[in-house]
């Protein structure tokens, strides 16, 4: 009992111990922050990769894709571990915004929207789809005009902004479901909305075209064009303070053009580039800068046709199978994606040589090279280096934390020297050497526990507010931005603290300080009571 009693009393009364506690607090906080930022970065990367790719992907890493994807999907869809599979096409193109004379090279992705909603988390990244559920389409569509409608009865009629159906009803459903506007664009537009709110009018989220002419009723206008989902960072430019500025006034439904280079069956560029008009259907806001600043999404069948990768007939009457770049697969709950990927890889190899389909050598080779990978395996080139970096940083931080351990060692050793006579007194009243040593081990552990707890709390608080802290620093000077979204892929610093990391840091602090206290404890224990009593 005296060990605990004296440990707590020394902790409270020896002010030098506060220095040790302070050092441990700072080290623990530092380690937790580094672990959380890098760990959060990896987690975010994994979550985004999984949300954008599905559980397993079939890919041959060839620009001109692989054939027999429909047959493959039909076969594997009967497997119990496969919940849903969808083909995806990747290409490159030139995106032009005619009204604002802006052109960008983009990665064009062909998707089947309904399927991709089921296979991965693409739907959650769509801004307008969140606020107007069910209205985002890659099919033919016109321009929605935000008009004016009369509301009220009799003499209390008033004109309010109104979107055409089904947008208006869809937005009412979203509002009823508690979806809050998260638009990060255009301060001017925000101030316009605020003025509407001031007049008791609830503004619509997003940006829509306004009527041009006498008829100001809400309506659909213009020629029908297929829809195109555009990455957030293509439509807008992120400002140093974090908000987005649109490249001019560019509302949903405006026309954009996409120029594509079709490829031959052999993988060469064939003929002339193809230009096609689309309507801007939605923003994709995945939060991954590389994706949001490069990717646009259109209908799979349309892109396949434009790239001349759809099914065709040769002059000799033989069939040229359609091709896709990738098949994204959702694995049924309770099944292991890695095992499913393994089975799929074997199946595709057999499938290529099954002889059930008339394939030429090139097509068979494209199919033979197709491999199944889990989302994690496909992203290992990104995830593995960050995980290594995380381990490396933990080692570096651990080495830095040794300073705290050495400080604890020095302080405790000093306290033992100061308390030499106390050691003699305790031994003279019958305390064992082991018991006396235990006081200083417990003292070290207590310094570690208090420092670790304070450090974990400090680190946690810092992490929770890390983006606000950065914004505050940027408000002082834009050059104080620490997290550059164009470098680190994500627009916000990962701020999630894993409780297990916090507990780990706390336990490690206790262990480290306990370790640091052994030398002092050993000296105290080995002290002869008579020498200790005579110590000056």
């Amino acid at each position, binding site marked *: *009992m005296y060990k605990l009693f004296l440990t707590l009393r020394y902790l409270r009364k020896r002010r030098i111990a506060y220095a040790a506690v302070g050092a441990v607090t700072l080290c623990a906080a530092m380690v937790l922050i580094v672990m959380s930022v890098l760990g959060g970065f990896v987690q975010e990367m994994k979550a985004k990769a999984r949300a954008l790719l599905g559980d397993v992907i079939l890919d041959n890493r060839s620009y001109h894709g692989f054939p027999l994807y429909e047959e493959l999907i039909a076969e594997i869809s009967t497997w119990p571990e496969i919940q849903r599979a969808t083909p995806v096409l990747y290409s490159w193109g030139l995106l032009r915004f005619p009204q604002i004379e802006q052109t960008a090279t983009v990665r064009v992705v062909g998707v089947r929207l309904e399927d991709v909603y089921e296979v991965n988390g693409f739907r959650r990244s769509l801004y307008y789809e969140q606020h107007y559920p069910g209205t985002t389409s890659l099919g033919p569509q016109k321009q929605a005009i935000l008009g004016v409608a009369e509301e009220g009865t009799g003499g209390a009629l008033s004109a309010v902004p109104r979107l055409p159906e089904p947008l208006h009803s869809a937005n009412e459903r979203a509002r009823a479901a508690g979806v809050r506007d998260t638009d990060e664009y255009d301060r001017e537009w925000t101030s316009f909305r605020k003025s509407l709110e001031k007049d008791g009018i609830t503004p619509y989220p997003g940006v829509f075209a306004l009527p041009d002419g006498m008829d100001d009723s809400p309506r659909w206008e213009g020629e029908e064009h297929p829809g195109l989902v555009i990455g957030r960072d293509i439509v807008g430019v992120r400002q140093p303070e974090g908000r987005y500025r649109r490249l001019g006034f560019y509302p949903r439904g405006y026309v954009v053009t996409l120029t594509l280079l079709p490829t031959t069956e052999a993988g060469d560029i064939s003929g002339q580039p193809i230009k096609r008009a689309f309507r801007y259907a939605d923003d994709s806001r995945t939060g991954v800068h590389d994706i949001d600043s490069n990717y646009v999404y259109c209908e799979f069948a349309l892109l396949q046709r434009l790239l001349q990768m759809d099914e065709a007939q040769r002059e000799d009457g033989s069939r040229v199978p359609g091709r896709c770049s990738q098949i994204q697969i959702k694995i049924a709950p309770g099944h292991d994606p890695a095992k499913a990927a393994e089975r799929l890889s074997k199946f595709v190899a057999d499938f290529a040589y099954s002889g059930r389909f008339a394939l030429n050598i090139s097509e068979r080779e494209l199919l033979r090279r197709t491999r199944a990978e889990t989302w994690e395996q496909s992203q290992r080139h990104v995830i593995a280096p960050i995980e290594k970096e995380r381990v490396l940083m933990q080692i570096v931080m651990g080495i830095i934390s040794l300073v705290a351990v050495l400080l604890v060692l020095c302080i405790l050793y000093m306290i033992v020297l100061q308390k030499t006579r106390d050691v003699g007194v305790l031994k*003279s009243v*019958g305390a064992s*050497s082991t018991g006396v040593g235990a006081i200083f081990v417990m003292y070290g552990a207590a310094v570690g526990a208090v420092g670790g707890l304070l450090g974990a709390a400090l680190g946690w608080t810092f992490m929770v507010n890390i983006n606000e802290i950065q914004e505050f620093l940027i408000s002082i000077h834009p050059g104080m931005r620490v997290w550059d979204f164009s470098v680190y892929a994500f627009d916000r610093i990962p701020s999630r603290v894993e409780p297990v990391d916090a507990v780990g840091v706390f336990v490690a602090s206790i262990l480290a300080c306990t370790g640091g206290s052994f030398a002092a404890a050993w000296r105290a224990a080995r002290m002869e009571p008579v020498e200790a009593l005579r110590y000056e």
Partner: protein
Amino acid sequence: MSDARQREAGATAAAVVGGTSADGARGAFLRAEGVSRTYRLGRVEVPVLRRADLSVRRGEFAAIMGKSGSGKSTLLHVLGALDEPQEGQVLVDGEPVYAPVGRRSYRARALDVLSVHERRRNRLRRNTFGFVFQFYHLLPELTVFENVLVTEMVRTGVLRWPTARGEARRRVAAELERVGLSHRLSHRPNELSGGERQRVAIARALVHRPSVLLADEPTGNLDATSGAAIMAIFQALHAAGQTIVMVTHDATVAACADRVLHLDDGRLAAK
């Protein structure tokens, strides 16, 4: 104090000086036999005790006098299981305190719980002996009450403490009242006078009812008035049957004892 102890206290104190007498040794509670202790000062070995013998009966008040550096304190430490002699043995109630000469470590073991002899020495210091030092040696972070209570904590052990705590606190309060410090319980040592500090040290040495009180120059650091007050306490304790071995260089103080021994050239002699 039991009747038996009172009777023992009244019995004639027999000390065996300068050799072991069978008559004297018989019935002695605390006995040193041929104790030698040498200290090393650099390369020079300084013998402090040379085959010193001593027997103390229960209830006896023995004073040991000697010049400064004559080894009085060393003898007291050896008697109280604090310092291991190179030769000889100390017996408490007939039981040896130290390991046989060839198996002594002359250095505290960090894991002394693994050694039977070290455990026995700890037990003796915990239960049998009570120490009063010249410089009080109170723990400065603790209050008067806590300084005494810590002895009870050491003695009781963590598992028995929850049930023994109330009784221990009562005993500590009673002991501090006996030395006249019940009004100073929450004071810290630096808020007390020298005499008061020594009284706290006496309370600490007596709270666990030790068989032998070992006092090393208990008045050496006090003024005459405070010294007299401390000696009055010692005499009262002796009258109540407490066995006391006191080291002093002050003849007036030594006069309070039943008998006075003189340590000279590492050996004890009756004055």
